[in-house]
């Protein structure tokens, strides 16, 4: 009878250690012979220090290896040890609230070992073995089990129950399951006998190769919005749970702040945030803020649902390539438990550049701008791993993917942006002009789009009870008309326009300044729930509709724009939270009162003119 420790593909074969010898070192790339010792994508360890690496090419008897750590001092002749399994991550309790590097080394442990700076070399395991978890069985001995079923659970944090699942290829009968109690990751908590008579011993964790997608039963059509609390996103370019989105933009246009906002406020169960080739301080910022901020749904600190992967721009570039896969595999794992997961990758361009750098060192034939020809297929494969699914265990789970794109010179016609555009359903285009006027979020509403508008319409209708899509289109039309008029304004000035067109300009200005613009740093404005978004837009559109009456009555437009309610409209986002519609309704009636007042004045004035004229 064969036993399997963890039930993963990687764990099946007994570890064999092929040894080869380095013949060349060039930065993160080394070559070794004989190649027959290794298989493609096998994990290796380099030299006596056991630096982590991965086989990325086998050709003409030579193995090409990318090394995830600094290679200074490595010499030809140094041995390389094959690990007999592909690059994997450890999946089990102990992920949530933690920060890992691109190959899942826990950064807190690294700090205990090496101090404030990161050095290289082998370091224990990704998940702590000594930590004790409390496990509670869900199934009982004798039950029939099938892949992906929940065997039991571990409270991983106050907000997250970590379900221990039946391994993906195991079908059979539960021979034995541990009683509720405390266990470490290495304890066996269940034994399953497969129909073939094979016994699988289940632990709280298992390994999974990062480049292999985790299976599910069925792919569903995303139809529920992922509410982010950001008005321009939720109301204008909504994202769906299980959807895909890209945020392209030049430097300083707001990619990271937007992704941080989404990590904070998105109504997902788990957030995986990958800092891929970006700043160390941005990761630190998350580590400082998230324990203090509360999840609006659970009132628990946000860090309790967040997993961070950091390959900062000064860390080795090969691990940057790996960080994306490490992150997405972890995301899929929580999806398989039945959770809605949102994954942020900041920035996918750095990942693409890592591919380019490695490809260059391999002397591959470059395609556009030096990127390898397989860039597009890698991007496609990444976004393909998002989606809403029925899991193997018949739960519903999703992975929503949000990738930042950093186009050189802010020019969207470059390869990474162009290809990404083909594979995502939401495109939030950031605009340098808007950012430089400190108009945030600097999402250009003319260039951006979302394919989910009709899909989430029903949800909105139910939630806010109003005509969400109609209101949205009405506002959108004004913005589009305004864009046309702005071309004239640029040449002739606003004064040159008739009042009716000025009305469009002023209306658009209200939508832009008082609805779309939203400060991430204001304690209230930072998050707007769906009700608040709807009520705000309702109120603004109400005022805008009344402006038509003003024009028809030939009252000069500026009189309406000077009304006291206008400054109340300016302020509403900073003042109300949206849990009570009262203030918005009051504001609407004050709008009516004030408008009526000037209309009446005008009426009596024209009457006077008329009567005096007649006299």
């Amino acid at each position, binding site marked *: 009878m064969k036993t399997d420790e963890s039930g993963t593909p990687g764990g099946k074969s007994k570890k064999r250690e092929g040894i080869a010898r380095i013949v060349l070192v*060039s930065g993160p790339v080394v070559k070794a012979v004989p190649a027959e010792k290794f298989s493609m994508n096998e994990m290796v360890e380099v030299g006596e220090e056991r630096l982590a690496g991965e086989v990325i090419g086998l050709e003409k008897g030579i193995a090409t290896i990318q090394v995830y750590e600094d290679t200074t001092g490595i*010499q030809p002749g140094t041995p390389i040890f094959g690990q007999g399994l592909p690059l994997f991550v450890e999946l089990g309790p102990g992920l949530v609230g933690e920060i890992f590097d691109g190959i899942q080394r826990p950064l807190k442990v690294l*700090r205990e070992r090496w101090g404030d700076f990161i050095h290289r070399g082998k370091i224990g395991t990704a998940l702590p073995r000594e930590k004790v978890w409390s496990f509670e069985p869900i199934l009982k001995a004798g039950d029939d089990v099938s892949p992906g079923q929940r065997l039991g659970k571990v409270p991983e944090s106050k907000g997250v129950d970590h379900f221990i699942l039946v391994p993906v290829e195991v079908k059979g009968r539960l021979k034995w399951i541990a009683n509720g109690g405390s266990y470490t990751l290495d304890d066996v908590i269940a034994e399953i006998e497969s129909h073939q008579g094979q016994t699988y011993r289940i632990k709280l964790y298992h390994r999974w190769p990062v480049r292999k997608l985790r299976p599910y039963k069925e792919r569903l059509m995303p139809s529920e919005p992922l509410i982010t609390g950001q008005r321009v996103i939720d109301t204008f370019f909504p994202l769906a749970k299980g959807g895909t989105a890209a945020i392209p933009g030049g430097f300083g246009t707001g990619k990271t702040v937007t992704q941080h906002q989404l990590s904070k406020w998105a109504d997902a169960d788990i957030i995986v945030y990958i800092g891929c080739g970006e700043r*160390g301080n941005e990761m*630190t910022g998350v580590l400082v803020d998230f324990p203090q901020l509360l999840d609006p749904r659970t009132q628990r600190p946000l860090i309790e649902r967040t997993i961070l992967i950091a390959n900062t721009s000064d860390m080795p570039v090969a691990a940057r390539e790996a960080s994306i896969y490490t992150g997405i595999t972890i995301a899929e794992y929580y999806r398989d438990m039945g959770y809605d997961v949102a994954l942020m990758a900041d920035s996918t361009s750095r990942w693409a550049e890592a591919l380019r750098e490695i490809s260059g060192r391999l002397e591959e034939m470059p395609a556009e701008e030096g990127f390898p020809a397989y860039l597009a297929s890698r991007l496609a494969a990444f976004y393909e791993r998002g989606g809403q699914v029925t899991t193997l265990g018949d739960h519903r789970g999703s992975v929503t993917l949000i990738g930042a794109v950093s186009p050189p010179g802010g020019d969207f016609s470059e390869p990474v942006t162009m290809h990404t555009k083909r594979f995502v359903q939401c495109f939030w285009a950031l605009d340098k002009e808007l950012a430089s006027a400190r*108009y945030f979020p600097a999402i250009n509403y003319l260039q951006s789009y979302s394919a989910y508008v009709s899909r989430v319409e029903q949800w909105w209708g139910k939630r806010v009870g109003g005509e969400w899509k109609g209101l949205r289109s009405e506002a959108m039309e004004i913005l589009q008309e305004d864009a046309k008029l702005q071309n004239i304004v640029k040449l002739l000035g606003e004064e040159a326009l008739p009042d009716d067109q000025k009305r469009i300009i002023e209306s658009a200005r209200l939508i832009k300044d008082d609805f779309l613009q939203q400060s991430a740093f204001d304690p209230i404005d930072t998050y707007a729930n769906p009700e608040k978004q709807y009520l705000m837009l309702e109120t603004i559109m109400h005022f805008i509709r009344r402006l038509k009456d003003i024009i028809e009555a030939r009252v000069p437009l500026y009189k309406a724009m000077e009304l006291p309610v*206008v400054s109340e409209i300016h302020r509403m986002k900073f003042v109300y939270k949206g849990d009570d519609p009262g203030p918005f309704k009051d504001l609407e009636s004050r709008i009516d009162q004030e408008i009526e007042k000037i209309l009446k004045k005008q009426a009596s004035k024209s009457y006077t003119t008329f009567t005096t004229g007649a006299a």
Partner: protein
Amino acid sequence: MKNSQDTNKLDHMSRPPIEYMGIDSVNGPLIIVKDVRDVGFGERVEVTGPDGAPRQGRVLSISEEAAVIEVFQGTSGLNQPDSRVRFTGRPFEIIVSRDEVLGRIFGGLGQPIDGGPAPFKGERRNINGYPINPVARAYPRDFIQTGISAIDGMNTLVRGQKLPIFSGSGLPHNDLAAQIVRQARLLTDQEGFAIVFGAMGVRHDEAEGFRRSFEESGVLKNVSMFLNLADDSTVERLITPRIALTVAEFLAFEEGMHVLVILTDMTNYCEALREVATSKGEVPSRKGYPGYLYSDLASIYERAGRLTDRTGSVTQIPILTMPDDDITHPIPDLTGYITEGQIVLERALFQKGVYPPINVLPSLSRLMSDGIGEGRTREDHRDLSSQLYAAYARARQVQRLASIIGEEDLSVTDKRYLSFARAFENRFLSQKSNEDRSIFDTLDLGWELIMLLPEQELTRVRKEEIEKYGKGNGKNSNAGNQEQPASP
């Protein structure tokens, strides 16, 4: 957690030196030596030509057949059979101790050029440094007052930030940097501070200008200068900023000092990198620069910050000149993608006689929002700055419009924007090169100017703020217990 990052304890490479006679080929800054044994990637090399002067180099790639070495002082005069190549068995390192580096001037490879001795009693440190563990970082939030309104008011610098100056040839970036160094000094004279100056390919007179400015403001004894000048070897420039930062990190994280690092001119650095890449026959990316320019620059710029368990800080102000004033050129572009904002100088403002000619619109300080506000600068700082941005952005559009249709045909509001723009440029942006404005003066001035606009245009400031700071003329508004602004 106060492990030193001393390389001896943790580093891998340490082997007695090996020497070879003869070079197999020379290609630009690169030499190739065949049939070497036991040589490691990245190790430091000394190459001695027939003239007997040793030159420094580094192993760029190593195979069983040959080592490719970049030689920092150039390869001219290295003849093939008579040159000696010594592989030192160690990475590129320098020796640092506080009193051996402060008040001193070194060349671009760290060799003393002020007549003093080479440091010998300190710690040996790998010039490439090590990535800071994000878990160990402290988020920078201590406001540094530079006395320059465009910076303090609208692009605030904080301790541990990396904030470059994007300039153009002939623009007064050196004056601005020197003014920052002079004015951003300690206000509360308690903590140690130091300035590390790294020059890459700058002219003698520019370097001398900086030295004199340090001397005049009496900080010279706290300055460590590393000079690779315009007529020095280009390849050497690849090393200079790394040496400067190694010294800065030592002073900050071992000696607890607040260190301001000026690196100028990063454009020369990038050109040197391109030169070496071209010699290696690499596939270039944009404009001939190597595909790894981003990672390479990041390995410099990320060496800034603060740590939770140590007192010091490294603040970086790199300076670069944008080729053709083009901010989308790969050098400023990739820099902007790495640094925590940028201060952008503009030729048009310079031609109008505005000093410092900082165009605030493309400028940015990403760490500003955490470094300002109540208890740090003043409660109204964020809203005021946001309002000034919005107003000046609109005012610039009006300026463009006015140049088409003429000023007379502008609307009443637009005319007010136009006069705001003038006042903003001439009074807020402009200041004398020795004028040191307090943050409160800067904010009050901002209010005075923003009030030139009709009140309903002020949508980003609160009513109460307008009452208190806009109309109250701000004079009594400085009371309160603000934190003292920090030294660099």
